[in-house]
């Protein structure tokens, strides 16, 4: 090879590197915080029900069947985008849908649900946000798929869309049910 072409080859190499960087940053969200809790049991918790704060639901009560834990709040804008999809698809996913009301005044949360509807089978309220930190929650909405043994199998940050349900959630739910049989 002609030695004069060497700088040009170097230039092409740099170009390829920069191109890879652009491709990588477009196909990956650099802001997304990876969860180290995938494949690990959910943190131990016991939280009051939104509807009836005298009753508490803990991680032990929820074990036994897979469930989706959906972090939401009335102050969360993106949750409004997600809400109709949960209303529409929630019951069809074939798993219990647990609402996790995050750092929300109970009165605000109840009004929000009265206005937009309640897609959840039950709602636990974390007003101080301590359990959310144990779950590694960075904001709302976030969704966790937990299996019957209480192990977190999947986490999705940002609003759930019909595509996410079809491509990410339903196959995993089906696999969980298959494994249980």
């Amino acid at each position: 090879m002609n030695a004069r072409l060497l700088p040009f080859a170097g230039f092409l190499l740099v170009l390829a590197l920069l191109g890879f960087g652009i491709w990588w940053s477009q196909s990956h969200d650099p802001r997304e915080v990876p969860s180290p809790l995938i494949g690990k049991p959910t943190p131990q918790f016991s939280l009051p029900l939104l509807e009836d704060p005298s009753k508490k639901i803990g991680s032990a009560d929820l074990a036994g069947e897979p469930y989706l834990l959906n972090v939401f709040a009335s102050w969360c804008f993106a949750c409004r985008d997600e809400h109709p999809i949960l209303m529409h698809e929630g019951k069809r996913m074939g798993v219990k849908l647990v609402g996790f009301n995050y750092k929300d005044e109970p009165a605000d949360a109840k009004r929000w649900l009265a206005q937009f509807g309640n897609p959840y089978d039950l709602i636990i309220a974390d007003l101080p946000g301590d359990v959310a930190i144990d779950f590694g929650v960075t904001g709302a909405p976030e969704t966790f798929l937990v299996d019957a043994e209480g192990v977190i199998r999947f986490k999705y940050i940002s609003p759930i869309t019909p595509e996410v349900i079809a491509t990410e959630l339903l196959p995993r739910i089906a696999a969980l049910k298959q494994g249980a049989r």
Partner: protein
Amino acid sequence: MNTFASLRAVRTLPLLPSFRRRPESSSASRHQELDSGLRRNDGHGRFGVVVGAILALCVLFSSPAFAIDPLPFKDHAEELRFQALTKQLRCLVCQNESLADSNAPLAADLRRDVFEQMQSGKSDDEIKTWLTARYSDFVLYDPPLHAGTMLLWFGPILVLVAGAAAVFVIVRRRAKVVPIAQRAPVRPTADVEDDW
């Protein structure tokens, strides 16, 4: 006197005359309102202007203090340790800010947790482990050295070695060319420069 009133007072300073003349702007009514405010302030004399300017300067330079919530530190050393630790931790919400700087509610919660763990006698490393168990290495500004971060840590050295190797090879190749050029010194300078 609120912030806006103090800023309004600053606008009466003779140093900033350009602010006063904008009658043909689209939001003319708002400027009229401001102008009447100016006249009111002028009526109060210079003392109000000076106080307003000082207050405005205070507001300007005090913004970082809002992020720091009052925590009952035992002593100054503990406070310094807390600040040093939270500066190394990333806020998960506004990710370009450290836990020490961020105003996000989650950052305030995490600061409180870090503080409580310090009070219960945990070391900095234990607190970092506690955080990374929930939020992964993402929460640390300094990535720890393990298999997944090898390229990150040693990539620059790798590039440096590759560059040094390239320079070495090129220099060696040129070193072989030079004696030939010396053997035939017909137009030595022109030849050498042509090669460059």
